[in-house]
């Protein structure tokens, strides 16, 4: 399970941070999404899936 953000399309909406605050953050430099835990444990996956669904730019992916 690998979490990625395609930063070329990220708009910095921060929806991933709301959905899974342990897994995602926003960079202080540019506000874009960053992945804190690229291979999250099972208990974090529901939040990650929520982030994938909620991301308005659809740039968060979870490779299962």
């Amino acid at each position: 399970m690998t979490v990625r953000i395609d930063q070329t399309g990220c708009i910095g909406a921060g929806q991933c941070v709301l959905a899974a605050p342990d897994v995602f953050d926003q960079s202080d430099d540019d506000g874009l999404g960053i992945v804190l835990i690229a291979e999250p444990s099972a208990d974090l996956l529901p939040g990650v899936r929520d982030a994938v669904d909620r991301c308005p730019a659809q740039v968060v992916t979870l490779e299962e």
Partner: protein
Amino acid sequence: MTEAAVCPVHHERDHPLQPPIGFAEAVSGGPVRMVWPNGVEAWMVSSYAGVRQVLSDSRFSTRKGGQPEMRTDDGEEVLDPDQPGNINGIDGAEHMRLRRPLSRGFMVKRMNELRPRIQQIVNEHLDVMEAKGAPADLVTSLCLPLPSLVIAELLGVPPEHQELFQATAGDLFGKNGSKDEYLAHATRLAEVLTPIVEAKRAAGTNDDMIGLMANDTDFSMDELIFLCIGLLAAGHETTSNFLGLFTLHLFEKPDQLEILRRDPSRADVVVEELMRYTVGQLGGPGLTRRATEDVEVDGVLIRAGDWVSVSLMANLDEALCPRAEQLDLERDAVSHLGFGFGPHQCLGANLARAELQIGLRTLFERFPNLRPAVPVTEMAYRNDMITYGAAEIPVVW
């Protein structure tokens, strides 16, 4: 092609908190052709999947000179399609250039840092409301001042300019008017903002939104001023209307209000559900796009050049959540479209969330017996430039 129906673009409602009469029936069953009051034909998309597709697919452009929306009383488009800094009328890399620096200013952690200040503003305004005594108008007591004070501080409007700034903004966004009136107010607001921007440029600071735009970006003065006006518009009206509408929905559904009263710490989830439901019930045509290629949406072929509108009534689509037509504050947050979707999703969503959560929670904590002084159906409602809401909400406690 089947004959296009006339879109019921109006705000005549049987109940002020329900969609315009006939709208749900007119848009149901997939993309339908509609004629807008200004004669433009457009598709209307209202399914959850369809709206997400239109708002996120880059083949639907926001560049839309001649858009079907009616913006002023005389039916004219307010904006020049090439207005510099019109972030909602550009796509792709051009849009990203403006959007990204602004996103930085609205980061989740920045908004969380603002929470104590938002709480303080809410407390001060509710103190005044309590001291003056019932009945009070919730709109002027809390809903209107809260977001406009917060956005002015976030932008970094100096205290000595706040009063003029608020008054000018109120003239600009507080009512419908002709295009000439709109432009006159916008020019005055630009005159207030220009020296503020110049001062931030001279100081080289980036600790507020104007400073950030003035010193950390390549924005031109025209872009910067228009972006400030846009941020102000969004901060001034939308959040205030929603704080009022949320309260009215809760007045109308005492069992739901009880859920918030029982556990105010769930205000974050409660606000998501109220946002989903309220935006869905507003109905009406929302955001507009134009197809740049042939695209299939919900099984219908939309041709290059066609206008497409989406209705955020999609928030009531069962494809989003079970019993979607019901307000259920015990529901976990779902991926609703209350703030839109796609690259143009509401820039201030996280600020609006903080204001709505703190405002609503504190309101019912401070006034557990808060109730409408007149029936919700007898209050005055208005359609301003941007959104729909209650003009006054008389309350007692």
